[in-house]
């Protein structure tokens, strides 16, 4: 076992490829804990960011600047009474949240946080991702069914219809990105593996967002809109809107079961953002790997994670200095100061060369995913919501034709050198 441990540290493959079970398990546990921690932070971040968009402050009392609010929420949900509707199907009722959460988390098996920082690199990685994330729909339908009440059932059917219709557009947008991987000069064919897609972007020297401009951008735009509808977020959140009659498939769920649904939703949000980042935004690559190449630039960019955390720590400590000097807030000020110093310590650790070389890929990936999550919250604050029939119309009549068109044009443009030589041969 200890040989398995040390032997892997020398390799440059993912644990799955290296056949190393121990490290694969370690990676899975780290990802599970990490994503759960991320969901907690996103919960806090969403409440604060949404509040700032709405010119208010958000949670401020539960911990300094509301930092302990997610923990208070989690405690409340755990201690809540676990109600099950009278004639509900108990087994199915119990299983439904687990299906949704499991489907959301299994996707992370192939999400590449770095060239060797994925649990495994399947050669059908993207297909696996699309397939498994669709399994979440089953969880939603079973949740609505098991509630034994026709409003959750209607809500779950609407929700699942929405998710399924936007998956078609999503899939076509993904195909056009994969098509771009096959245009690497000197490579026989494209690849479906997630790490391979990022490597293709590195070899071709351009993020697929900017490839064959504006085709990559349009495909990315279609995927960006479809992924919001996929995760039932504003402006496509009619099935779970509060001001509608049907409160959605999770009406009858309370306490811990509801928190599993919420966990699954946020994990799915991070997962589809991860797919978007991998396919179009260059995955784990730092900005300008080919343009600003060389060991000097590499060192500069590898200092960025540490600098970022140090900056966050400085901001927190500045916030500590600005807290009001009221006796009731003494503990909060102390707590915030300790938190700030902890972040700064993380930043210092990230400056150590041995650590920063391994960690910088994860950092760039997470920064890009964080930008997507910010966009999710921004859209929620700004836009009204679509009515259900208008939502379906956008999915089928607008996004599907656009993504089909982009796919065809990408193929034609990408093969244009070969097409032209063939035409010259014929004429």
């Amino acid at each position, binding site marked *: 076992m200890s040989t398995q441990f040390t032997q892997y540290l020398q390799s440059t493959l993912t644990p799955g490829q290296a056949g190393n079970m121990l490290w694969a398990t370690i990676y899975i546990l780290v990802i599970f804990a990490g994503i759960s921690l991320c969901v907690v932070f996103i919960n806090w971040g969403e409440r604060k960011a*949404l509040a700032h968009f709405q010119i208010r402050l958000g949670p401020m009392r539960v911990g300094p600047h509301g930092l302990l609010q997610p923990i208070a929420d989690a405690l409340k949900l755990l201690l809540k009474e676990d109600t099950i509707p009278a004639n509900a199907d108990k087994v199915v009722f119990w299983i439904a949240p687990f299906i949704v959460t499991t489907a959301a988390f299994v996707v992370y098996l192939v999400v590449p946080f770095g060239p060797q920082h994925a649990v495994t690199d399947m050669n059908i990685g993207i297909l696996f991702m699309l397939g498994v994330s669709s399994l979440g729909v089953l969880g939603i339908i079973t949740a609505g069914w098991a509630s034994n009440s026709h409003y959750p059932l209607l809500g779950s059917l609407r929700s699942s219809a929405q998710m399924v219709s936007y998956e078609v557009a999503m899939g076509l947008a993904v195909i056009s990105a994969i098509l771009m991987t096959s245009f690497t000069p000197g490579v026989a064919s494209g690849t479906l593996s997630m790490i391979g897609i990022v490597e293709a972007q590195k070899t071709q020297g351009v993020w697929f967002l900017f490839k064959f401009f504006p085709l990559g951008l349009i495909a990315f735009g279609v995927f960006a809109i479809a992924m919001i509808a996929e995760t039932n977020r504003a402006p496509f959140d009619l099935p779970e809107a509060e*001001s509608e009659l049907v409160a959605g498939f999770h009406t009858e769920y309370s306490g811990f079961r509801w928190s599993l649904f919420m966990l699954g939703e946020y994990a799915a949000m991070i997962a589809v953002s991860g797919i978007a980042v991998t396919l179009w935004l260059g995955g784990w690559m730092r900005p300008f790997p080919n343009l600003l190449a060389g060991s000097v630039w590499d060192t500069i960019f590898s200092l960025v994670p540490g600098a970022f955390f140090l900056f966050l720590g400085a901001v927190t400590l500045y916030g500590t200095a600005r807290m009001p000097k009221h006796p009731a807030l003494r503990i909060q000020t102390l707590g915030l100061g300790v938190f700030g110093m902890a972040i700064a310590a993380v930043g210092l650790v990230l400056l150590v060369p041995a650590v920063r070389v391994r960690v910088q890929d994860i950092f760039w990936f997470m920064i890009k995913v964080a930008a997507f999550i910010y966009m999710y919250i921004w859209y929620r604050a700004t836009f*009204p919501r*679509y*009515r259900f029939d208008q939502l379906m119309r956008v999915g089928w009549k607008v996004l599907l034709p656009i993504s089909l068109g982009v796919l065809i044009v990408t193929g034609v443009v990408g093969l244009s050198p070969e097409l032209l030589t063939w035409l010259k041969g014929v004429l």
Partner: protein
Amino acid sequence: MTTATSNLDLHEDKTFLDSTELILNMGPQHPSTHGVLRVILKLDGEKVLGAECVIGYLHRGVEKIAENRTYTQFGPYVDRMDYVASVSNGLGYCETVEKLINVEAPPRAQHIRVILTELNRITSHQVWLGTHALDLGAMTPVFYCFRDREEILKIFEKYCGARLTTHAFRVGGCQWETYEGFEKEVLRLCDFFEPKIDEYEQLLTTNRIWIERTKGVGVISGPQCIAMGVTGPVLRGSGVKWDLRKAKPYSGYEKFDFEIATGENGDTYDRYIVRIREMRQSVRIIRQAVESLPAGPIMAKVPKVLKPLPGEVYHSIEAPKGELGYFIVSDGSLQPYRIRVRPPSFVNLQALDQMVRGRLIADVVAIIGTIDIVLGEVDR
């Protein structure tokens, strides 16, 4: 459940297959019904076939209370009917009693009344805009509207001592003289507020999601409105140019120059545009009123103990929600014999049934919001 007297049986092509009709109850407690309103919907799948409103959950017997209070003592109760636009309520009541005792408020009092009433129109429309946008899913305009409304409420507080239940006017004029710096503050508010209306429009007017949710939803034609007695922005949104401030001017409105905003199609989007334009016109009126504020007394010669001659009078004003009317019957004693209030929201709510037919459930919430009802007024 509905009785035989309900009008939900007007479904022409009824066959035995129509057993799929569902009666849905949007109960009194609901995040979107602006108060305690119960709406019973008759649905065919998701399509709405008819709606019936059950009201009375906020009935407080205001008109009965009026029979046991003197005319001056009833003033504070009037604010609490349409609690969002309480200054307008006070204006209507005071003008009606003045008509009863044949007294006219002096010009300065009339100008002050116009300024405060138009400010109140802006606050009422801001509450409407915020809650309507919130019902349709846009969560931020409500905060922007309430923040801008704060500035106006501060002016109310400085003038009469309360923000919401203002009790600003008395029979015969105004109780308080304007405070030090009133004109400057009001003008500064007008300058502060006009760009804010542009901001609300930037968020919503051209937004494609907003347009899709509101265009063609809840259409009601002008003749239908007139047949049901619907007034206010709902009537003007259907294209009928009727505004009591222009048709039957009161309290000095004939001196001011402003336009009446009308819509074309009578749908939710047009009513939204009408109310936004009304806010702009209100700012225009306020500017004119402040600049032409005359000097003089603020209270007419009214006896301390009001004992009007026996008779009855009806007077109505253009409240933010429509025509607010008061019908007072006096029997010669200190207390009125009967006060009947004609609330605009109560009469406008009748139009709900016509507007929701053929729409989806998700539109019902939008349509209730666009009629702009306040249950305090509907139920009194």
